[in-house]
């Protein structure tokens, strides 16, 4: 079984997204890109938010390491993190 990559915190999280609470502020993308590409670049973030239309969408890319930083930076309650087991 493939080893799950760990985020900088050493933990992995299952992150849920509630589009009804999302404001489209993109703080999740700003936190992610700041952490992993060292600048504010939403297009390079490992969570992509689409706030067009009435129902928003969040997609975690394959590069996502489930660090949960996106949820840490969401003050709207749209993203929440739950610790998960790391597979050996």
């Amino acid at each position, binding site marked *: 079984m493939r080893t799950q990559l760990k985020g900088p915190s050493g933990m992995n999280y299952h992150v849920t997204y509630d589009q009804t*609470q999302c404001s489209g*502020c993109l*703080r999740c993308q*700003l936190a992610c890109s*700041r952490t992993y590409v*060292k*600048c504010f*670049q939403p297009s390079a973030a490992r969570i992509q938010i689409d706030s067009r239309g009435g129902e928003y969408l969040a997609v975690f890319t394959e590069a996502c390491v489930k660090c949960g930083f996106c949820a840490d930076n969401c*003050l709207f309650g749209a993203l929440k993190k739950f610790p998960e087991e790391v597979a050996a």
Partner: protein
Amino acid sequence: MSMGGFAGKILNVDLSKKQVWTTPLTETMARQYLGGLGICIKLASEQIPVNVPPLSAESVFVLGIGPLVGTDLPSSSRVYAVAKLPASGTVGWCGAGGFTFGAQLKYAGYDHVIVSGKSEKPVYLHIEDDRVEIRDAGDLWGLGVDDTCDSICRDLDKQAGVLAIGPAGERKSAFAMAFVDRISTLGRGGFGAVMGSKNLKAIQVRGTGAATPADRKRFHKISRSIFNAFKEYPYLKEWRDMGMLKAFPIVPVDVYQRMKIRRAACVSCPVGCKDVIRIPDGPFAGLVKHTSSAINLFTPMIYGMKDPGEAVKLITDLDNFGLDMFEFFGLMGLARDLSASGVISLEHDEPKIDFQSLESMRAWAEKITFRQGTGALLADGFSAALERIGPDAKAVAPPLIKGMQPYAGPGAALPWDRFGTMELGQVLDPRGPHVGSGGSPTYFAVRPLETFPRHLKRMGVPDEAVSRILGPGLNQLNVGRLLRYSHSWFATLGSLGICARGQVNRFYNAELCAEAYEAATGIPTRTNDLGRRTERIWRTLRELNLREGLDESKEAIPRQWFKEAGFKEYLTGEPMTLEQAEEMKKEYFREWGWDQ
């Protein structure tokens, strides 16, 4: 030295020649004018031709964002435009938060856009990183703002920011606005008409680049501390739940809660005071509206409309036409009074002007937008209407400032009668009356004077000026002197890109702004540096306007303000006099150190 925060480029667009090119944003410009609003003003002073008619092909407008836009500094998404405005004939600023437009412009690689010339045919500007195209807008011309945004983004696979005008701007109504991401407005005074006069329907921008602070660690520490302050703010939930209704409870909360679908936020903002609402029932059930504040949607109820759903429908139509709603209602009042007194006659098939009737108001919005019948008389705003009708109209007209109706004052839309900085600012801001917060403690509330010293310090008022504003015993209030610093504080926030709304700027102070600016850009900046630079910014704006003919008539304080039921002194609530207001004006200029 390359600056952090900034993209480092200015996009130039000549619609007559169909040319686009970039020029560098220099460090000298940034050091002197900070960014955002400040650099917009400087560029406008260089680019707007002398005595240019606002809606001519030769006119120029400047759009821009500050160095903090696109970063995670909380609530730093502001977009500014500076243009010579048709309603006032002055060079004024317009500002908006929007949704992602400002950040997208930064990520696309531009700090400012300068637009000159006039296209032969309707066009829109498409900016996608370094690909900039002037595209045909034939299919968009005539569409409302919402339909324009939907149509223009239909074929894009990702989100883009859009600045768009509606039919009112296309037809150059002097109170046409442009909309940022369909949710915020640029700007009172007819900025929409400026775009329309160039046959420019919209600007669409999408960027995949980055905003990079010069000192990442220091910037992160500052940004984090502000974020945590927001997080711990005990009233954050209330702001979220109620949006701007918390500040202006124009309808019962349960009415608003039934309509609210979701909160919307500018990029980086933890508050999210914008709304997406849906009319729940009635003939317009299902209509969805984005708005920069729900209070806008219920404004028709101030004028007598009873049903909230009808109010929302009317504002939706006004916004899609691209009309400034306050000027619309003001002109409706004027036309009603003039027709009632026989000065003008409505055409035989024109509906009665009835503020309580959605049908009436929608019909008139359409007539004004498309310049039909008496609508044509009103489409160019108060000044033009009064000029055409003659002296009998002036006797009935409300007090005007720079050709526009004030927000606050006797007979104005907003029920507020204390004379503070915003009220005096209606006269002394070159753009004319607006309801933007300058971060002053007198903004729409009577606050205890003992809170003022702390507030003034936060605004960056130098220690030695505090007693000039509040008196030696800190028990007086000199509104004129305070307005000088309110303008400076507003210029700080606007130049950096930070929202000036009260629920945001309360977390900022001048020292923090200087630190954030320095960490973002790498340009050494102390608190008093901000003061010097904002003085330069505001002086440049004033000198530009003096060049363009700003005179005493455009800065006259309306006499009607101090007649019966007029303005009251902020501190005492006692009726004010014109002489007191005139003295405040003089104090304002003295505090800047300017010859009036």
